[in-house]
């Protein structure tokens, strides 16, 4: 019997890697979408809303297949790993922008008006008044999305990225020990998800140090 643990640990690292990168780039896509949704130019607002609606209205699985297998037809050739990161980032970006908007809107509008009347500019109000109060909720909801991202990363196995689910399926095929392989790989997903939850909790505590909660 081949030793399955090192192979699964290596594959689990690919899962972490791909999710972390997608989360990082997704954050900037989400921020850009939030800015676009409050833009003065109506077409920018429409574009952002249409993008969010379409991405949230179609399966992540189909998005992956479309970009990976359909991409070459429009001159977009990506290797599987990059494709996983790019589609993951653009997908989670749409969900994250809604989470950010929700958190910002949860701050009472009087805060904005008071800050503006005290002479803060639009950007300064956002930076010093709104965001510190929205940060707690924002971190919590981005944390939920990060966990979804980790679980969604298993779908990248379909475009042959050797991550945890792909490796598990391969090992089940070669060792005929589905119970052991499944238990181990499920355990690794659980460890990753609990690590994410721990980090979210840490960031949440830091972000809400000075606010009343």
């Amino acid at each position, binding site marked *: 019997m081949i030793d399955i643990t090192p192979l699964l640990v290596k594959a689990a690292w690919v899962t972490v890697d791909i999710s972390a990168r997608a989360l990082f780039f997704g954050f900037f896509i989400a921020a850009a979408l939030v800015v676009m949704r409050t833009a003065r130019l109506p077409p920018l607002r429409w574009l952002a809303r249409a993008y969010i609606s379409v991405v949230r209205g*179609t399966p992540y*699985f189909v998005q992956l297949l479309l970009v990976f297998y*359909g991409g070459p037809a429009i001159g977009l050739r990506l290797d599987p790993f990059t494709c996983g990161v790019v589609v993951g980032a653009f997908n989670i970006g749409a969900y994250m922008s809604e989470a950010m908007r929700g958190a910002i809107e949860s701050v009472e509008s009087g805060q904005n008006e008071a800050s503006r009347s005290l002479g803060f500019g639009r950007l300064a109000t956002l930076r010093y008044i709104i965001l510190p109060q929205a940060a707690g909720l924002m971190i919590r909801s981005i944390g939920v999305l990060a966990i979804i991202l980790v*679980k969604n990363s*298993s779908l990248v196995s379909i475009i042959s990225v050797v991550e945890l689910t792909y490796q598990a399926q391969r090992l089940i095929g070669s060792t005929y020990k589905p119970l052991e392989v499944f238990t181990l790989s499920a355990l690794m997903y659980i460890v990753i998800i609990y690590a994410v939850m721990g980090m979210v909790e840490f960031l949440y505590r830091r972000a809400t140090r000075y606010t009343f909660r």
Partner: protein
Amino acid sequence: MEFDFTPVIDYFPTLLKGVGVTLLIGLAVALLSILGGQLVAVISLYTRKVVNWPLRFFIWLFMTTPLLLQLYFLYFGLGELILIPAIVVGILGLGFHYMAYNADIFMATIRSVSSGQYEASRSLGFGHLRTLLYIILPQAFYRALPQLSNNMIIMVKDIAVLSAIGIGELVYVSQYAISITFRPFEFYITIAVIYYLINLMMEAGQSWIERRAAYRR
């Protein structure tokens, strides 16, 4: 780079069959996960630890591992022991996955029904089980509707994942068509559009259900 959508039109009847299978699976999974979720929630709230602890463990397990891994385990793992048709594995796998999420919602809404309701009902002569069935659960169900319909909208998109274990739903039949016509872009764009339309209809249905249910809460 020119696009040719004629193969998509040729295979449109096949795609429609795939849509039909997708919708039927969706209906079966919705029934299974909502009824099962309610049962799981009631059992894990109202029984002794010996009974509800294993159940809570399974909810936790289904919520912390990816759907695809669960499907592979059920299909390739349990398939070694007993031969189950892929379609049954798909419906059960997806059903259990969302049963866990729905049970979580039901547990929260059952707890949110005020204890005065329970006491009033008992003092009016209803037994424990009748109180649950006629007083608590209906109220909890209407409170759960917004989140339930949200879950079901997410679930329909996850049916696409079932193509990985060879169930002839929308994505699977189009992969078959692609293997003959070599037109992946055209087919996947068409699927995305079909899914988007299904999603729009479900969102419309969601707001209709919420309007109807609002006065019953």
